[in-house]
């Protein structure tokens, strides 16, 4: 599903990723962890095609992102959901519109957009709040809107960057249950986090990054 070969990225003097090799199989549930500045966000952004590597190759479903055209990258992104640390919600659009946007870009008929968006909002427990605006929601609710937008078009891969960074322990548990449910439907889930609470007792693969290198890869 995801293959990284000799991947490097530098920001000025700082090495974000240092010649890393990594394979994540279809349907895996993976945590990427490490201290701040270890390269977690950079890794996720590269898998998403939002950053270009200095060296190396990224293959998503055997498609090399170095050689992909811009229009094909747009199409590929429809199959990769991304939950951003800062949610990236549009404050002038309702919860419903924020989620529906991911379907509208695919050209789906508006009837189907409505149906699928309602379904997804029910799944994340926000059916009652679909007409609310993001700024009137709690942090946990905003996070669930961001997750709903990332999963609304049934992505093959779900990437989440510190999805519980701003949440209290109870909400963290809710969000993790949501990710587990999505994973059970066959989606490959990659979560970048430095939360010890999240990793404690995790029965899944954990990749540890340190100064741009993979320092641990455990099951």
């Amino acid at each position, binding site marked *: 599903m995801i293959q990284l070969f000799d991947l490097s990225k530098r920001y000025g003097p700082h090495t974000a990723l240092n010649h890393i090799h990594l394979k994540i199989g279809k349907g895996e549930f993976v945590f990427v962890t490490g201290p701040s500045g270890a390269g977690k966000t950079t890794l996720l952004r590269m898998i*998403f095609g*939002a950053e270009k590597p200095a060296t190396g190759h990224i293959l998503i479903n055997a498609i090399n992102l170095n050689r992909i055209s*811009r*229009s094909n990258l*747009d*199409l*590929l*992104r*429809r199959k990769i959901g*991304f939950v951003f640390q800062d949610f*990236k919600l*549009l404050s*002038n659009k309702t919860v419903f519109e924020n989620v529906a*946007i*991911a379907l*509208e*870009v*695919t*050209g*789906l*008929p*508006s009837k189907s*957009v409505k149906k699928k968006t309602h379904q997804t909002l029910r799944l994340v427990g926000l059916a009652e709040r679909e007409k609310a605006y993001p700024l009137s929601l709690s942090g946990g609710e905003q996070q669930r809107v961001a997750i709903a*937008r990332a999963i609304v078009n049934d992505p093959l891969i779900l990437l989440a960057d510190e999805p519980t960074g701003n949440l209290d322990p109870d909400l963290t548990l809710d969000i993790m249950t949501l990710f587990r449910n999505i994973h059970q439907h066959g989606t490959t889930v990659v979560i970048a986090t430095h939360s010890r609470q999240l990793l404690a007792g995790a029965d899944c693969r954990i990749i540890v990054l340190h100064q741009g290198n993979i320092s641990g890869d455990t099951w």
Partner: protein
Amino acid sequence: MRGLRFYFFRQALLNIKRNITVHVLSIGTIVASLLILGAFLLLFGNLNNWLRQWGSALSMSVYLKDGISAYKRDKIDSLLRGLPGTRTIRYISKDDAMNELKGALGDEAGFLKELRPNPLPASYEVIFEDRQAVTVDPEKISRQLESLDGVEEVQHSTQWLTRIEGFLDVVRLVGYIIGALLCLCVVFIVTNTIKLTIHLRRKEIEILKLVGATDWFVKLPFMLEGMIEGLAGGGAAILALFLTYLALSAKEIYLIGPAPLNFVFLPTAYVALILLLSTMLGVVGSLIAIGRFFDVS
């Protein structure tokens, strides 16, 4: 695909609604620019019409010397009546000429009372059949008449026609230059408005790209926004021009001859052309803005 078309229009209209002040100001400026262009076309079109109408009927004024004898006048009269293709030949005595002038001046004719003796000459007004129907050489006839004893001066409409046609050529050239500058002005206005809306919506653009929107999916509403802005500006300019025309056409305008000028509105083709032009300028303006200020990487 149908749903997607509605989506683009809905987005474009929503964008306009969200930044209504910017768009209203922008459309207002477009209206002002196109109004100048439209007014020019209206005036130029009517001038051309009047000229064509006037030029199609050859007319001639034969001014007589004061104190001309009845014999000499009869001789001139019979020569005029012998000319081919004449429609009407009318003798205007000195008194008739003064009365006509008084009638034309209306309330402002008071000062004419002071003019004694009457300085206006007696004349013959000769109107020929349409120029297409007769082949007369006005220059030749003028020379012939001027050689007669008792004729002071002969003026014919083609002399004026040539002068006005020369003037219209200059007006046309000035019109092209002004028109081109105004078109550039409209493009500049639209470019800047769309640039501003792109800036205001940069977060939305970023998110659209992150969820897999193609470049054109993101760009098209901006293009439609420019198109709607241009069309609205063109439509409002036509409306304003039409209202001005209604106000003007209610008055009788005398410029040449005793009959009021027939003031007509722009032909439908011109109206369509202005609307098409304004729409196209809107599209060009937004394309320039998209090309220069759109970073969707």
